[in-house]
């Protein structure tokens, strides 16, 4: 469904992703793992049109979406749940959810509230005053509001309490079970690899390893650098 | 032989003061063309045709200094006209004494410009207190005792008008009960007027540029004040009618130099009005002839001095000049001369009243230019 070939991207004079190839098939959950600053978020940003690609191609459903405008990519069916949650802090939970459906007609907020009951309780509250875990739920719900065909998560467990991390992992597993295609970036490599069908290992802007989730969980290099402790 | 004499104009062409500066610059250009058409300036065997360079000073002292420096140092100009605004004029006046040049000041009315004894400077517009004293006597004669002043009192020539007014007014037992201020950019005077309304004065005196003053008259009626209104604004009918209706203006007095109004003027004035309107598509501002008269005064002085190079002689000739027929303003000579020894000219002062849509010249204000001229020599 998503094909990336030879993608390069960067900021200013610095290139941070040096030509990567990556595929996500329909209905699959693919994880990207790797060190801090390896270029995972930058790759995701480039897919979503937040960062221009310098070279290479991104194809979605066979159509070239490289360097299309961000809103056009959303309309094509890709949504991202960004790093650090990025809710609209001054707006209420409801307003945040409605904005999730901005790119399409109608909105099935009820469905989302059923899926995340905690959000129903907080419906009128300003999103900025939610706890970190609640904000993460809101960000996920908001992303799902656009009925994406590919949903991208960038470090959904970052900075969350262990208990909440477990909840988020369950939520993603649920979404996956619903048949959604998922691209997941996680520092919490163990969680990512458990959820993923396939995974890629990033190092310094390049993909150095590729395999199924279970394969990588036992790969000695991965165990040493990312699963240790 | 036919030669060219370049003269310079430094005046406000942009910014808030352009209302005064632009018409002055226009009228100098018009006068230059008229002088050229009438055969130029005759000096010995030569006739000089005038060429005018105009620079914008934005009424800003630094800009004015730069403009005049450029005129003198770079363009080689010796005669500089224009000058509508006191600040810019003061800046130039502070160094012009040491230059090989003659400066002719127009509408800038700050008194100190002609009290410093600058020999190469003359001014066509009389200082405001010269008119203010006459106005004070006139208002007192109307029988008012308590008068409230509203005006641009931070501008010293308006302040000096009020000061002279107050002095005369007190002589007959009157009292000024309020000195309220508006800034030149203010257009909402209702707070000040509301305050004045509570004091219940016998009359109101509005002193300031036309633009805000017109609003003061209008807002006074809107606040239901129906006391007699006097003023010192020198605005034309058009200028007032843009702001206030004729009914709102009815009965307002303007006590000022007899500047250009169609009722008060001479044939020269009527011709000026017609020519200017035709050339620039707009009626001339009442004060613009101060600059027009500068150009003609310069022509006569140069011819009298018999030299364009000798600026000292031209400056001296200006002070010896008699009032000439082309003058648009009605100058009152001092000892037979247009400019007194301070380089100051005087016009008659008049009481004008708004009657059914027009400024009507009612009477001349008693003005003693000879006495004022003596007084001016003692200042500073």
């Amino acid at each position, binding site marked *: 469904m998503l094909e990336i070939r030879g993608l390069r991207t960067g900021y200013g004079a610095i290139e941070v992703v040096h030509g990567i190839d990556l595929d996500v098939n329909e209905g699959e959950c693919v994880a990207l793992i790797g060190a801090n600053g390896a270029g995972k978020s930058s790759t995701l940003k480039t897919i*979503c*049109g*937040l960062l221009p690609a310098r070279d290479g191609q991104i194809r979605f459903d066979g159509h070239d979406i490289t360097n299309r*405008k*961000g*809103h056009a990519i*959303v*309309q094509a069916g890709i*949504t*991202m749940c*960004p790093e650090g949650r*990025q*809710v*609209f*802090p*001054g*707006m209420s939970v409801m*307003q945040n959810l*409605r*904005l*999730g459906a*901005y*790119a*399409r007609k109608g909105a099935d907020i009820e469905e989302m509230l059923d899926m995340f009951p905690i959000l129903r309780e907080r419906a009128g509250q300003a999103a900025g005053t939610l706890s970190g875990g609640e904000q993460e739920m809101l960000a996920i719900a*908001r*992303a799902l509001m*656009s009925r994406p065909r590919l949903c991208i998560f960038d470090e959904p467990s970052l900075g969350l309490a262990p208990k909440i991390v477990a909840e988020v992992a369950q939520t993603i597993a649920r979404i996956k079970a619903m048949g959604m295609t998922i691209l997941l970036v996680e520092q919490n490599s163990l969680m990512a690899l458990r959820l993923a069908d396939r995974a890629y290992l990033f190092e310094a802007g390049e993909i150095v390893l590729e395999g199924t989730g279970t394969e990588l969980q036992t790969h000695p290099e991965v165990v040493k650098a990312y699963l240790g402790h | 032989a036919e030669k060219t004499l370049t003269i310079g104009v430094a005046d406000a062409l*942009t*910014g*808030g003061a*352009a*209302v005064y500066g*632009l018409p002055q610059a226009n009228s100098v250009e018009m006068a230059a063309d008229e002088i050229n058409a009438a055969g130029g300036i005759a000096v010995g065997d030569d006739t000089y045709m005038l060429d005018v360079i105009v620079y914008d000073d934005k009424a800003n002292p630094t800009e004015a200094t730069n403009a005049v420096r450029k005129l003198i140092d770079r363009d080689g100009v010796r005669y500089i006209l224009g000058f509508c605004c006191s600040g810019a004029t003061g800046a130039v006046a502070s160094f012009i004494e040491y230059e090989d040049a003659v400066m002719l000041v127009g509408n800038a009315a700050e008194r100190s410009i002609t009290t410093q004894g600058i020999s190469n400077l003359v001014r066509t517009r009389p200082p405001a207190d010269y008119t203010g004293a006459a106005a004070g006597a006139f208002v007192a004669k109307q029988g008012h005792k308590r008068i409230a002043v509203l005006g641009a*009192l*931070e501008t010293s020539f308006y302040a000096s008008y009020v000061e002279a007014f107050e002095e005369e007014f007190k002589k007959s037992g009157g009292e000024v009960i309020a000195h*309220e*201020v*508006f*800034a030149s*950019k203010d*257009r*909402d005077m*209702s*707070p*000040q007027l*509301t*305050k004045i309304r*509570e004091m219940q004065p016998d009359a109101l005196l509005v002193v300031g540029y036309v*633009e805000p003053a017109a*609003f003061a008259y209008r807002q006074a*009626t*809107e*606040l*239901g004040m129906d006391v007699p209104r006097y003023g010192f604004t020198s605005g034309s009918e058009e*200028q007032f009618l*843009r*702001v206030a*209706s004729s009914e709102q203006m009815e009965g307002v007095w303007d006590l000022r130099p007899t500047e250009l109004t169609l009722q008060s003027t001479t044939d020269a004035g009527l011709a000026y009005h017609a020519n200017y309107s035709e050339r620039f598509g*707009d009626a001339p501002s009442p004060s613009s002839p101060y600059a027009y008269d500068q150009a003609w005064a310069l022509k006569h002085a140069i011819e009298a001095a018999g030299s364009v190079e000798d600026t000292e002689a031209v400056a001296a000739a200006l002070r010896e000049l008699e009032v000439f027929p082309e003058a648009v303003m009605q100058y009152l000579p001092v000892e037979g001369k247009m400019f007194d020894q301070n380089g100051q000219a005087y016009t008659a002062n008049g009481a004008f009243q708004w009657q059914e849509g027009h400024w009507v010249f009612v009477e001349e204000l008693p003005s003693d230019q000879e006495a004022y001229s003596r007084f001016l020599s003692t200042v500073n």
Partner: protein
Amino acid sequence: MTEILQQIINGIAIGGVYVLIALGLTIVFGILGIAHFAHGSVSMFGGYLTFFLVAQQGYPLILAILVALVVGMVLGVLIELLAYRPVRNANHINAFIVALGLTMMVEGINLQFFGAEQVVIPTDAGRVFSIGGVTLPELRLYVILAAAALILAMTIFVEKTKTGQAIRAVAENRDAAILMGINVQMIPLIVFAISTALGVAAGVMVGSLFAIAPGVGEGLVVKGFAVLILGGLGSIPGAVVGGIVLGVTEALAAGFISSAYKDVIAFVVMIAVLLLRPQGLMGRA
């Protein structure tokens, strides 16, 4: 008592104008973080244009205002596209310099087209209402009502419409807004169109109630920024409260303390508010 009441009424009319100017500034600031200094001059352009259409082309007032609104909106959009967009990623000071340059240009254009004379938009609202010694000219009443209607419309637009919500979203988090599928290239254009429309409305009010002349726009924009600070940067209710407070403070200062120093007093009030509440009257901490 009537005096105080009268002064408050005097202040509300001018306060309404301040509110409109400040609203235009505040949405631009909220979305783009730009101190749009040229806003005052653009407003005056709208006022001048209305005057020109009414007084010289004989348009009926309402039609003239509509035309001026449309032209103003186009101008606003052009300003965003040609001047502010190229400096979006640079330092904010650079955008401020661009705003200064624009101010000079628009002031210069106004002068070229409309001259240096002050201009008053003619209206036939000449009546004066008087209740118990407090007077209210018809025109001021209209201005207050029109300002109130525009404020209401603006609030409804931002709170209730999809586009309004998109604008808020971009203001709060631009990148997240892109991920919602909002066309963030369009939003600044819409914002500038709205901002300029509000500005033109303010320009028409100033032009009919008071006058348009060179330099008036700059004075207004400074007051507009003072309102923003007073009310809280980027806050719409803040702009409304701040504008009325500033207008009434000026009137009371001129009426009861000193007319010469009324602006000084207004600024001192602004600075005092800032010392006590650095986020402004309605701003979030």
